């Protein structure tokens, strides 16, 4: 354990929980704790998605902290119902609520009883900020949602698709691929519309979209689950729960970024459903390979640092390797033992878990990387280490369009690869003349 965290590379659990709930239709979140946590998380998300992010807080004060926050939370639930008329309320805890020992499951079920609410679900997930990062908070909450909404149900032929934190554009792309394959599916959590709302008048503070409640319930009868979560611990894995509880076969795959991972995703779908891969997808694959060949010399033996949540770090690292780019440093702020395991066969990768940006900077400098890829907090690497940053993942605060970054599937991979290659090219071209002058002309003139 390090004595002091210098420039955090992760966020806290309830942040991930908000993402999971935002992927459910008609949901609203209340964070049980003091006002600041909720406001900070909203701000963090708002600035990335360029969307109003409505998340309530139970606004615990001194009294609530000393005598228990039950009354605050119940009042908060009342007000959320009045203002938003949600179909589901997600309750997430904070460090404060957990420390004072709030039993939110009990409070939630008691509240439902007191108010004899029948057409409203309240799901409480325990997400103490100190218990893990946003990545764990996300899966933990996603699992809790599934645990709460599923029950033994009739078998059907749909496929469950469980996604990690990726961009709304990525979710839409995965849906497009599934549609192209003519597959019936339930994708969860689907925050592709709720966190990337089209402009429309009049404004609707309860954005359309999100996985439907009955679709989530139906996940217990699906033909299979594909979960993009190879770094996810079984204890918080929603897919594992569906397997253990209802016998739904689980295919735990990486995010389909890169040729191999996208092939694997599509092959798995073909294997499960017997669907036929349309020419259009084959062409997309062909274009990706074409792009990889076009760019291969520029990319070969380039070195990079990848940081962020474990699932994204893994996927991007693999994709780099396909192109001859060495992911010299793969770093996450999460504890994630599985990231190390998954990248274990590649001794040239330095895997950092529970890391911070100071450590990432040190390693990156040591490893002489050409660029870094991850959220905008990585600007620290550029500012202090002169390492160009390719913005990817969450959060991106200093550029626009994080919600539109497309990186999955053959087409998304092509776009991501272009972003990398172009970064390398701009380094090369920016320095080309000076470098050559210094290297050769200086000698000649000596």
């Amino acid at each position, binding site marked *: 354990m*390090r004595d002091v965290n210098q420039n955090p590379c992760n966020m806290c659990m309830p942040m991930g929980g908000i993402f999971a709930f935002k992927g459910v239709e008609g949901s609203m979140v209340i964070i049980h704790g003091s006002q600041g946590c909720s406001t900070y998380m909203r701000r963090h998300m708002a600035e990335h998605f360029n969307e*109003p992010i409505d998340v309530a807080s139970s*606004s615990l004060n001194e009294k609530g902290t000393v005598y228990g926050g039950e009354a605050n939370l119940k009042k908060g639930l009342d007000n959320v119902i009045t203002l938003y008329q949600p179909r589901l309320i997600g309750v997430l805890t904070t460090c404060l609520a957990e420390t004072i020992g709030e039993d939110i499951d009990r409070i939630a079920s008691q509240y439902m009883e007191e108010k004899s609410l029948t057409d409203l679900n309240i799901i409480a997930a325990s997400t103490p*900020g100190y218990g893990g990062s946003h990545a764990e908070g996300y899966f933990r909450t996603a699992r809790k949602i599934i645990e709460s909404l599923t029950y033994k149900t009739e078998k059907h032929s749909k496929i469950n698709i469980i996604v990690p934190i990726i961009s709304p554009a990525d979710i839409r792309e995965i849906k497009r691929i599934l549609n192209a394959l003519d597959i019936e599916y339930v994708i969860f959590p689907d925050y592709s519309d709720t966190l990337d709302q089209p402009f429309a008048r009049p404004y609707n503070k309860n954005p359309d979209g999100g996985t439907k409640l009955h679709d989530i319930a139906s996940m217990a009868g699906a033909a299979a689950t594909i979960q993009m979560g190879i770094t996810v611990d079984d204890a918080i894995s929603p897919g594992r729960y569906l397997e253990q509880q209802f016998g739904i076969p689980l295919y735990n795959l990486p995010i389909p970024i890169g040729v191999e991972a996208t092939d694997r995703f599509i092959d798995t779908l073909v294997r499960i459903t017997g669907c036929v891969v349309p020419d259009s997808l084959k062409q997309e694959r062909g274009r990706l390979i074409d792009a990889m060949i076009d760019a291969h010399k520029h990319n070969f033996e380039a070195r990079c640092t990848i940081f962020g949540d474990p699932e994204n770090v893994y996927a991007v690292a693999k994709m780099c390797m396909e192109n001859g780019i060495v992911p010299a440093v793969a770093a996450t702020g999460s504890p994630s033992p599985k990231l190390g395991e998954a990248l274990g066969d590649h001794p040239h990768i330095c895997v950092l878990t529970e890391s911070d940006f100071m450590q990432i900077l040190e390693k990156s400098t040591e490893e002489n990387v050409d660029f870094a890829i991850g959220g905008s907090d990585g600007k620290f690497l550029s500012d202090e280490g002169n390492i160009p940053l390719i913005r990817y993942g969450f959060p991106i605060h200093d550029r626009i369009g994080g919600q539109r970054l497309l990186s999955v599937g053959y087409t998304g991979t092509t776009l991501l690869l272009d972003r990398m290659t172009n970064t390398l090219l701009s380094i090369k071209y920016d320095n080309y003349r000076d470098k050559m002058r210094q290297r050769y002309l200086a000698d000649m003139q000596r």
Partner: protein
Amino acid sequence: MFNELEERQDFIVIKGRHKKAMKCDSHSVSGSVSQRACVYSGARVVLNPIADAVHLVHGPIGCAAYTWDIRGSLSSGSELYRRSFCTDLKERDIVFGGNERLAAAIDKLVQLYAPKLIFVYATCVVGVIGDDLEAVCKAASSKYGIDVIPVQSSGFMGNKAAGYRAACDALLKLIEPVNTDNIGKSRSINYLGDFNLAAETWIISNYFRSIGIEINAVLTGDSEYAKLKKTTDACLNIVQCAGSMNYLAHKLNDLYGMPYIDVSFLGIQDTSESLRKVAAFFNDDDIILKTEEMIKSQTAKANQAIERYKHHLCGKKAAIYVGGGFKAISLLKQFREIGIDVVMIGTQNGQPHEYDTLQELADEGVIIVDDANTSELEQFILEKGADILVGGVKERFLAYKLGVAFIDHNHNRKHPLSGYEGAVNFAKEVYSTVCSPVWKYALDQGGDSAR
């Protein structure tokens, strides 16, 4: 005015012929989606610009992660303040206490950066698990012979205003003079309540320099340990962001007899008046003459620049939702300077006397609201037909989704809003959003295109 939440009713008034009592400076209503932040946030805003200090967050990681380098304060020297240090408390620390972790973190930071000053911010859990911040800081302070100052900023202890006080208390500890002989001896002044966002401290300091007044210490824009230690040398404190710094000015007056005057450098009129006030304090013909000359030339220049924007903006309607009452009052005046009517004014943490002032200044029918939630903002902006909202990051995207123009008045902005330059920027910012062609396309997107 109809409000879906009954307990919010008293926080809202409509300006009428008589002043009405309104509730403020109170706890947020649970579940209302308040826009407020926490005590820690308030304390950090005030202390963060102290550039060569280590700012250590004692708590779990989130509180530090969400506040890493999110403010635009500039420094002329050290960049240390832009790092986010955190004890990163974990489950076992919550159970067994975080004192040792805190001590270890301080040890490490001293070893790495050899700072003269460390601020240790308490977050919510720290207030509950019973860590003895004072004791740990004191021990570290004597161990290393540096200032290690605890900031009592546990989030649940109140709101942002409580954070300002916590920060001021920390500052008082820092600036307590060792040598009382020099108190008030210098001819220079302290400038309180400017955080050098987008170089604002530098802009104002230049004005003072050119009228012959030196600035001793700024609290806290572009400040550093050594300068702050000499705070009490100055002969006058001028106080801008009253919400955060009034308390400190009072205390400095009580403790060291330092006089203070309120100033505001937002808007042309306020800037000129403030400069005059300070000049008058010195009662020096040369200073007064230079001040008048500068006011004349700067005002002419600024007015000319603003004229270009003004005629596009006349008659537009603005809604204000900002952190403190001081800012709201200034903005109300600034909008008037460019011909815009204000139709809604709200603040997160306004104080009673500030709301009084707002009620006096506002036109009849204006909605005045404390700690508005998103639903109220939406309702008021639409009902009042505002063309533009001024606020912070969270409000920006609400405005945009409502098809309403927006300008930032937060701590992360990159454009100065202080002084004459700031007044021009303000007009330009307003112009660049209100007069953008994009709104035309937003009009008929989706259902109601009646606006």
